[in-house]
């Protein structure tokens, strides 16, 4: 069985010919029903990767080269009409900020029903019923009444449930979840993650979970892909990547999780900030922040494969994290 999604050398460019590559040669595959955690700091290109797959890039962003094979169809080059038929139906997306994703002047019911009708020619009553069931499924109480409510009458967590209900309406093959819990508080986060996990497992939906939160990834994902400055720097199974990270950046990310620190010690952090994509140094883009960097790092390392995992580093970390 071939993979559901295969991204090959995806390059997404902002401003033609300016060399602003938000995503630079990213490749990964995702099987049906699997969860990929796409991890990185702000500006690493992880969200842009998600929007590239949906072909919903903000102007002047565009896919400059590469392939996005979704069940055999190349999303990078397929027609806009075909893309519209896929969006919402077979590939859905959940956004980061639930306060902004629902149209404030339309009822929740309208926004659900139109999503049903966009892909299925059913009577409005049937669509309404489907909408109501979808709300019930994501744990919204008294869904019938809530259909006629406006987004502002819902809390952030409830709105994200509505967005998830919309994403799951047509039982898509793939959901791209762009930090869907970042804007929520911790207790709600956990609820949403559990619901999400339950529902996607039920419908055998593959998920790309975009996040900077390694704790979530370790809980949810099968595979993990770490991005830095537009490039994949490490990829592999969750156990491998989080257990024995090879790339110093991945290690840094893991060490930055507060629970990795001993009480009373200052929190660890990766020094410096992600470089802007228009000011990337030649060679490994992480080398300015890396304690293992040498002269040799001024050339760009290629991904080195070690079985099913890969990393982009000349001086990979050996052994488990804690021994450092």
């Amino acid at each position, binding site marked *: 069985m071939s993979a559901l999604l295969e991204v090959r050398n995806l390059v997404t460019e902002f401003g033609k010919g300016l060399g602003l590559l938000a995503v630079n040669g990213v490749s990964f595959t995702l099987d049906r029903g699997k969860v990929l955690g796409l991890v990185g700091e702000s500006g690493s290109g992880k969200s842009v990767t998600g929007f590239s797959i949906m072909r919903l890039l*903000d102007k002047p962003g565009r896919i400059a080269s590469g392939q996005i094979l979704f069940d055999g169809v190349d999303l990078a080059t397929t027609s806009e009409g075909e893309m519209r038929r896929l969006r919402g139906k077979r590939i859905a997306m959940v956004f980061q900020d639930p306060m902004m994703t629902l149209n404030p002047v339309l009822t929740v019911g309208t926004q659900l029903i*139109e999503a049903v009708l966009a892909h299925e020619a059913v009577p409005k009553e049937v669509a309404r019923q489907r909408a109501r069931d979808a709300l019930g499924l994501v744990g919204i109480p008294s869904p019938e009444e809530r259909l006629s409510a406006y987004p502002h009458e819902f809390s952030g967590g409830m709105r994200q449930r509505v967005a998830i209900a919309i994403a799951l309406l047509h039982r898509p093959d793939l959901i791209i979840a762009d930090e869907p819990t970042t804007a929520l508080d911790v207790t709600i986060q956990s609820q949403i993650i559990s619901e999400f996990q339950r529902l996607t497992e039920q419908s055998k939906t593959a998920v790309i979970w975009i996040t900077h939160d390694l704790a979530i990834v370790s809980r949810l994902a099968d595979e993990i892909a770490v991005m830095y400055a537009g490039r994949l720097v490490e990829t592999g199974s969750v156990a491998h990547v989080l257990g024995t990270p090879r790339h110093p950046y991945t290690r840094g990310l893991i060490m930055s999780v507060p629970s990795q620190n001993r009480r009373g010690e200052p929190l660890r952090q990766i020094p410096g900030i992600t470089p802007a994509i228009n000011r990337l140094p030649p060679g490994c883009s992480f080398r300015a922040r890396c304690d293992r960097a040498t002269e040799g790092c001024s050339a760009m390392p290629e991904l080195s494969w070690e079985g099913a995992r890969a990393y982009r580093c000349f001086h990979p970390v050996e052994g488990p994290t804690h021994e450092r």
Partner: protein
Amino acid sequence: MAVSLIRRLIQAIFVILAMTVIVFVGVNVIGNPVDILINPDANQAERLRVIAHYGLDQPLWKQYMLFLQGLVHGDFGNSFVYGRPALSLILERLPATLELAISALLIAIVIGLPLGLYAGLYPNRISSRLIMSGSILGFSLPTFWVGLMLIMVFAVELRWLPTNGRGATAEFLGAQWSFLTRNGLSHLLLPAFNLALFKTSLILRLTRAGVQEVLPQDYIKFARAKGLSERRIVFVHVLKNLMIPLVTIIGLEFGSLIAFSVVTESIFAWPGMGKLIIDSINLLDRPVIVAYLMMMVILFVGLNFIIDVCYTLLDPRVRLDAKA
């Protein structure tokens, strides 16, 4: 809702009351009607008789009280010039102005809204840039000049349309209307277009600005992610959000169309209220001026009130109660 309605009503009464003072005092400052009303050859006894007849010998505050007394009974006094009740004089002219203003507003909406949508959706097309430059002309060309040009081109040179008057009218709802007859309609066209020019530009630019503001919102992106057709996104998701600023402007501008159609009415000899008020100002016909200004105040207060009610229908987040 009921409470806030009553609050608004009381506020409105105060606004109207304040305006009576301003209008009454203001009109007294601009000139003494006695100089115009009385034949210069009249003798002193005759003068005093006329002054007493119009109550102009009373102190200002007493005149004001008498005026208020009349106002409560809907009596603005008799016109000095026509010797008839000022109010009925104005109401006679109201249909002419009303149909001119409504036609102008319709033209402005029918032209301005689609062009604004187009220019907002495709800001980089040359046609959009032409539309936007054109709207600058609509803003900056003086109404009287455009009116004269319209007459020159369409009436004098091409002889397509008549230059002045209302043409044939037909009765409807107890008033005479031009738009009901072919001949009347041909008379209406030029002045209505003249009056509409500025408003068209205004609505056009407002619509474009609104589209540009709404398009980058997450909820539009999310609507796309649902696989909705572009048509539904533009005409439901974008347009419904645009309606809020548009209704405000259209409502207020309708008031100003009625109140300030003076120039157009004068150029096209359109027998509406604007022409009446200009004539009355020239003759210092105080009761007519006062009655006209009061009607305009009531018109604006009323329009504002209607706009507020429309808000609650258009924007679910606004409820009049919430302001209490």
